[in-house]
């Protein structure tokens, strides 16, 4: 049964072009004006610069790890050096890149803009969150520079509390402090979304990026304090020589694992949910269609956040938990896979009968959906008890989480950066090079991590610098892929900064998107909007051709080129005179 709603409206004209003199970037060039800013956009840029540095450091560590694995007895590192290297890679990538990346960069920049606000609810808290993040990073960097820590990012006692001879305290302190930054950002985003929406921006009209940021912030707020107290207890045990995880006084090291994973499992949803939000924004824009199943996707984000709190011990199936515990956690882990599946189906259906172009944001988003699907499906092997016994702590797990975190989240982050770059900087980057980069990253990624599934299935354990000779061929393939992946990452590191000087000036809305952030100049004004926006319809009304303020949309970019670049003031097509709305089924 299909319901057809006829929309009788004549297309409103697209907005007049406007190029303001003062925007948030040129409003003061001094270092002081940047380091003491309370402007959410500048804070977003501060985060962007810092996490790029940490991504590079974490990536370098990964490079050394992979090079070392070319030989079954370790090519370039001693065992101790290798152990410090993979720990540095994990800690840097998880706590100092993935957790802050989208919330800290894209969330800070775009949450206020997408809901029509002037800034976040607590701008000074926002700046404080960046400083707290940098202080935490400082401690962690210190720990790495004076010799590193070798406990793995998971820090299990008794090894981390009483046997490791490395700089555990500064490293853990760094992670502990940066956790507060995560809490502050989450709190800020939640209050902003609750209280600062402009008139007409009801909950049902929020872009899906906002829904996913809301879900992410909920997790950041409620889960991070638990790992904070766990890390405090670990530090106390290491400093005092005695603690609550110490078996010699009746303590239980497995309790640490419970408390640690109570945060660290929801943490992975902190990492992926924002990426899912980004994908929803881009897939709709570049197929010129409404999202298929808005409510389903929004509810799925919330569902993943809530159910994600109930799964933690699926990391502990062979760690000595009871049989009945294991049954429960496996069952719940199956449940959380369902909302992710729903999202993938909805994204795919959004493409149906669209009008699709393949600029870099779209290529990255499509790659995200493909790789995230593999990552999610391989998670099922690990959620299933019978298979997890064999696959736990092998390269199968390593491949699984890299698929979701790198193939998923990093690609979604890249997609977001490429999508919003014109808005943030006022410049367009090279369309051709960005498409090449997306393709190389996709291929390199595949080659790096697919052999690792085979390795894990054959039993190669994680965190092993020495391995049986028979596994060498897969390790070499994986390292070869990693070098291609590294090359792929290098390209945006070149063409994006170059665009700041040589790129075409961007219009307000080069991708012809519907969100509120596109209805202001590129780069935006200091207080975001000339006048208070008033929202009249939902997001993603691409089919009708109106933005959220009810105005028309400019000409969308063609299949061969990037956004308009230099064609300011082009009027869009006369919109559809009437449009049937299909509610299928």
């Amino acid at each position, binding site marked *: 049964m299909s319901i057809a709603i006829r929309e009788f409206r004549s297309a409103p004209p697209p907005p007049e072009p406007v190029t303001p003199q003062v925007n948030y970037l040129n409003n003061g060039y001094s270092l002081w004006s940047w380091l003491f800013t309370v402007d959410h956009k500048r804070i977003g840029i501060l985060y962007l610069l810092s996490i790029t540095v940490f991504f590079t450091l974490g990536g370098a560590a990964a490079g050394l790890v992979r090079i070392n694995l070319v030989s079954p007895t370790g090519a370039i590192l001693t065992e101790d050096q290798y152990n410090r290297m993979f720990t540095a890679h994990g800690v840097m990538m998880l706590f100092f890149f993935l957790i802050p990346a989208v919330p800290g960069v894209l969330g800070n920049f775009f949450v206020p803009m997408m809901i029509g606000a002037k800034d976040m609810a607590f701008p000074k808290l926002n700046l404080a969150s960046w400083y707290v993040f940098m202080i935490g990073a400082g401690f962690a960097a210190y720990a790495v520079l004076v010799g590193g820590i070798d406990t793995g990012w998971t820090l299990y006692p008794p090894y981390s509390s009483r046997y490791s001879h490395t700089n555990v305290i500064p490293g853990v302190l760094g992670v502990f402090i940066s956790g507060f930054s995560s809490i502050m950002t989450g709190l800020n985003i939640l209050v902003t979304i609750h209280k600062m929406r402009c008139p007409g921006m009801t909950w049902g009209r929020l872009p899906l990026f906002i829904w996913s940021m809301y879900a992410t912030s909920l997790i950041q*707020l409620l889960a991070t304090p638990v790992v*904070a107290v766990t890390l405090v207890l670990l530090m106390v045990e290491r400093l005092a020589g005695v603690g609550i995880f110490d078996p010699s006084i009746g*303590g239980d090291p497995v309790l640490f694992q419970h408390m640690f994973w109570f945060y660290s499992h929801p943490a992975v949803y902190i990492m992926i949910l924002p990426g899912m939000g980004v994908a929803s924004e881009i897939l709709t824009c570049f197929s010129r269609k409404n999202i298929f199943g808005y409510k389903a996707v929004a509810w799925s984000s919330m569902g993943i956040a809530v159910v994600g709190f109930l799964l933690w011990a699926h990391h502990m199936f062979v760690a000595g938990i009871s049989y009945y515990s294991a049954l429960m956690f496996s069952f719940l882990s199956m449940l959380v896979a369902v909302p992710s599946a729903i999202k993938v189906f909805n994204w795919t259906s959004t493409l149906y009968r669209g009008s699709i172009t393949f600029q870099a944001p779209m290529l990255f988003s499509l790659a995200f959906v493909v790789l995230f699907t593999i990552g999610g499906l391989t998670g099922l092997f690990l959620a299933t008890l019978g298979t997890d016994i064999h696959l736990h702590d092998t390269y199968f797990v390593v491949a699984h989480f890299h698929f979701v975190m790198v193939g998923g989240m990093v690609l979604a982050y890249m997609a977001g950066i490429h999508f919003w770059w014109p808005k943030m900087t006022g410049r367009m980057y090279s369309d051709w090079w960005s498409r090449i980069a997306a393709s190389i990253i996709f291929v390199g990624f595949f080659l790096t991590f697919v052999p690792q599934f085979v390795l894990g299935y054959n039993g190669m354990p994680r965190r092993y610098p020495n391995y049986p000779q028979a596994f060498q061929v897969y390790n070499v393939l994986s390292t070869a892929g990693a070098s291609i992946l590294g090359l792929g990452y290098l390209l945006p590191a070149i063409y994006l900064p170059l665009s700041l000087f040589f790129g075409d000036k961007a219009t307000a809305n080069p991708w012809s998107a519907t969100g509120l952030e596109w209805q202001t100049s590129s780069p935006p004004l200091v207080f975001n909007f000339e006048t208070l926006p008033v929202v009249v319809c939902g997001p993603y009304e691409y089919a009708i051709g109106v933005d959220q303020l009810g105005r028309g949309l400019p000409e969308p970019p063609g299949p061969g080129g990037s956004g308009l670049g230099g064609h300011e003031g082009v009027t869009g097509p006369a919109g559809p005179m009437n449009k049937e709305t299909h509610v299928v089924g």
Partner: protein
Amino acid sequence: MSASTLHPPVLKHHFDNLHQQHASERLGMWMFLATEVMFFAGLFAAYTVYRMWYPDDFEFAGSLLLWKIAAINTFLLITSSLTMTLAIRCAQYGDRKGLIRNLLITAALGTAFMGFKTYEYLTDFEEKLLPTQAFYESHAAHDLETKVNPERARLGLEAISSERVRLFLCFYYVMTGIHSIHLVVGIGCVLWLAWEAWRGTIPPDNYSTVDVVSLYWHLVDAIWLFLMPLLYLAGAGMGH
């Protein structure tokens, strides 16, 4: 409605109106309180696990603590929550003197708590009630060996292990220590509020900072009300 040209001086520039500002501040503080609850919840959960595993050992260990001081401290904190609430009332009515007075009393009660706590810790150190090896030199460990465990053996009960008493003491110091740190921060905030009130920046139409600090203060009090029975009262029946 955009910010009017006659906006009140207390309205911050990124907000549209005072109502939005106050509502945001309150919501923000409630969310922060949620994080504090989760922080302590981790500790309480861990404590609960061990208490379920070692009920007798933890009961004995609890009886070693100075519950009388804990009782005084409880009274002090509850009273301070009263004066904190009275401070809000003074702020609402514009009673600046009353506001400052109540804030200072609140801070004083909190400081008294810390004073008694310090005395309690010093006494504990002197009696060697520590989670380290030093515990074995204490009277309590000696009593355990010479009086308590033989008596238990006579009654057919399992012996109480000094190691598990040390585990309890780990929790005691960490939980009361972290609570004390939160209290000290609270005292600092209350004193800062008194300063702001003295400067005149808390008019009756913008007292939400008092509101927000009081929420934090009440939470610290509430956490103590959970902490105290778990640590001190559960062993009180065994006498000390």
